[in-house]
């Protein structure tokens, strides 16, 4: 099946899946036919895009913090803030196939599966990256070195390098298979601790390689102003993966002041990412890596994840939807009227809308 030409400037919202609670992670399955999402309601939600059916699985006892599909398809791994990891055969059974009860001591913030499907890797606040057998959840090894919470993981397209990013801005490279540390890159710009702060703000919230593994993007925010509102300047640091040198620092033109929660490379080294902002519109921004400014942005409410469809033409963003009670105080709302905020899973199709093509 041929896919339409990539045309970011003509991107449009092609699908919106509503949910009545806040979801912070959403991913396409490797075959692009399913979407899995999780967040505040502790459930794992799976949409079957062929028939618009939605299933919700319960097992987690707290917020779902991360999820990743097995590259071969059919299996989904979800993690939570108590450090529990479940493996799901999501299309078959609504109970976990198996569970790692204590993948990490504190919590799991990020997890992924190696491209060869063999290993499941998790990381979180205990700073130790854990490697498990993806078939049965048996521990394989641990990777030590980070000094602070690990927020993000990524694997190079050739499957050889694992990269992890933490709160201090330390980006570490590990060899997949030998599980040895290789080098450390400095993304410290994404961490702020001013003298009057009482907590560290920021961190490497997202990592992504480009298609041929020559570039690594590390997303977060710089120059945070406080540890209260935590506003900063959303920033992506682009490293030359071969040399390890910082190649470029990218930002947005808009007003969003939250970190880049997710970055994705598109074809031709275009970069997409999403950020967040308080009580108003945020944006999905696009860069061409050789240009000094973003070339396009789409207005969207705050978004917390970014998943690229295998066809490289669709981006999935779990997007914030106000439940109508935002802001300070109850302001007259009764308990029955005071409801949590919601989500819409938006799919942005990165090409011209079909009817335009036929007429154009």
């Amino acid at each position, binding site marked *: 099946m041929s896919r339409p030409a990539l045309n970011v400037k003509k991107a449009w919202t092609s699908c919106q899946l509503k949910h009545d609670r806040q979801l912070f992670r959403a991913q396409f399955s490797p075959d692009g036919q399913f979407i899995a999402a999780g967040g505040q309601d502790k459930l794992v939600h799976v949409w079957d895009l062929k028939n618009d059916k939605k299933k919700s699985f319960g097992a987690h006892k707290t917020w779902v913090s991360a999820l990743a599909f097995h590259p071969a398809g059919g299996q989904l791994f979800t993690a939570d803030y108590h450090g529990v990891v479940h493996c799901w055969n999501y299309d078959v059974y609504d109970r976990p196939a198996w569970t790692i009860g204590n993948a990490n001591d504190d919590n799991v913030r990020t997890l992924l599966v190696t491209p060869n499907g063999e290993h499941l890797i998790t990381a979180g606040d205990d700073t130790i990256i854990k490697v498990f057998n993806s078939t049965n959840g048996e521990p394989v090894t641990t990777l030590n070195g980070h000094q602070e919470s690990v927020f993000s993981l990524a694997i190079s397209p050739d499957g050889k390098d694992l990269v992890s990013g933490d709160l201090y801005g330390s980006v570490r490279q590990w060899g997949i298979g030998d599980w040895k540390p290789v080098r450390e890159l400095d993304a410290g710009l994404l961490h702020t601790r001013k003298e009057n702060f*009482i*907590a560290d703000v920021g961190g490497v919230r997202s990592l992504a390689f480009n298609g041929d593994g020559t570039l690594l993007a590390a997303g977060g925010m710089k120059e945070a102003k406080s540890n209260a*509102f935590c506003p900063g300047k959303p920033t992506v640091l682009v490293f030359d993966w071969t040399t390890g040198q910082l190649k470029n620092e990218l930002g947005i033109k808009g007003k969003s002041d939250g970190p880049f929660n997710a970055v994705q490379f598109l074809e031709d080294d275009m970069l997409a990412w999403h950020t*967040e902002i308080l009580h108003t519109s945020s944006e999905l921004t696009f860069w061409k890596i050789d240009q000094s400014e973003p070339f396009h942005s789409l207005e969207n409410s705050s978004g*917390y994840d970014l998943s690229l469809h295998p066809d490289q033409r669709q981006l999935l963003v779990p997007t914030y939807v106000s*439940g109508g009670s935002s802001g300070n105080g109850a302001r007259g709302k009764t308990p029955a009227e*005071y409801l949590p905020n919601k989500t819409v899973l938006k799919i942005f199709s990165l090409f011209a809308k079909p009817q335009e093509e036929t007429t154009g």
Partner: protein
Amino acid sequence: MNPASQNLACGSPAHAISRRQMLGTLGGLAGFGSLLHPAIAKQIRNQHKQVCLIWLDGGISQYESWHPLPDSKFAGPFRSINTSIPGISFSELMPQTAKIAHKISVIRTMATKDPNHSTGVPRIQRGDPLDRGVDYPYLGSAIARLLGPVNPELPPYIWIKPGNGGFIQRDAGFLGAQYGVLALGDGRPPIHIHRPEMISAEVDMARDVLRQKANERFTTYRNTSDVDAYETSYKMARQLMARKEIFDDNLLDPKDRTRYGSHPLGRHMLQARQLLEAGVRFVKVNSYHWDTHGDNFNMSQRLVPQIDQPFAALVNDLDDRGMLDDTLVIVMSEFGRTPIINSRMGRDHWPDCWSIALAGGGTRPGAIVGETTSDGAFVDSEGYDIGHLFHTIFTLLGINPQETHYHNKSQRLAIARDDCQPIREVML
């Protein structure tokens, strides 16, 4: 009414004890801010009640601290843990305090009006008084006036805060500048508490004797309260200089420093203990930047332990020293945080239903007061406003808000709101 008409007797040089010293306050003119019943005042002054107010500025999130409710639709991602009170849980971010929950009390149904910091903070610390066209004193200044000092050598109201220090008159409101607060910036005493380097202790003493002799001569035939108050200020200054070790955190036991934590709030609360032990009537400790509108969960994870650790240490230490019964410890903010999570993964302001913690000073240990809706968002029993809290505090300190009033020029002013009562469930 003229402030200068004081009957101060005797023209002898020995006349150095002013009425103010007897009353134990610095300066202070009869007629301004005086009590309706001086007899009651004298009675109160004989007690040794002290107060430690810990102010977490910005609004600590009750969901991430005192009232976790992990099954609530508004819950955050953290666990809740059992406390030493059967059936009661706190957030996992408060493990130390959970262990000593049986020594403290928590009010979970504070329901106040003001969702704003700028008006909320001064309003709350003043007791949310009715608008009488005057600036009411902050709680510490009020207590300084109503109870005076415990140790007359030390100011009755000291504030340990990050940033700058100094003598801050504003807290005193209409009570007058002498009831202001001595603020220790980052816990450090006023810079001028140190004798200049080139002056030895002996020389300092010798020259102070010269000064006193000059004053004796001057006051032999002059007797105004202003001159007396001036002499008293020097006496207090010298006393403070002589006691400056109570501000020297280098003298603290390193074990204590570890127990309280080396972060600013930990250090400052340990210093608060030092000041309480030295006999300061009212110590306020401030921590700022709790207003987590953004990234509330990552921030709470790092902030809440910063109060958990030293609060537990302080309560235990006061208990060990036999001081807990007479020392009222209050931990609070200007409001709590919204159940609803906003677009920045934060929580906004929530005066509608929030928590404060109390310990000692006659509060009921282990009392967890107030029922909320099951999701923790709203009050489902009695909601308490700041007026109730102030009634409670004054009553615990032995001051009857019904019978005690301020006099400000021609105004008679209540010390706490007339339309509120003490919160009995939290009192022994």
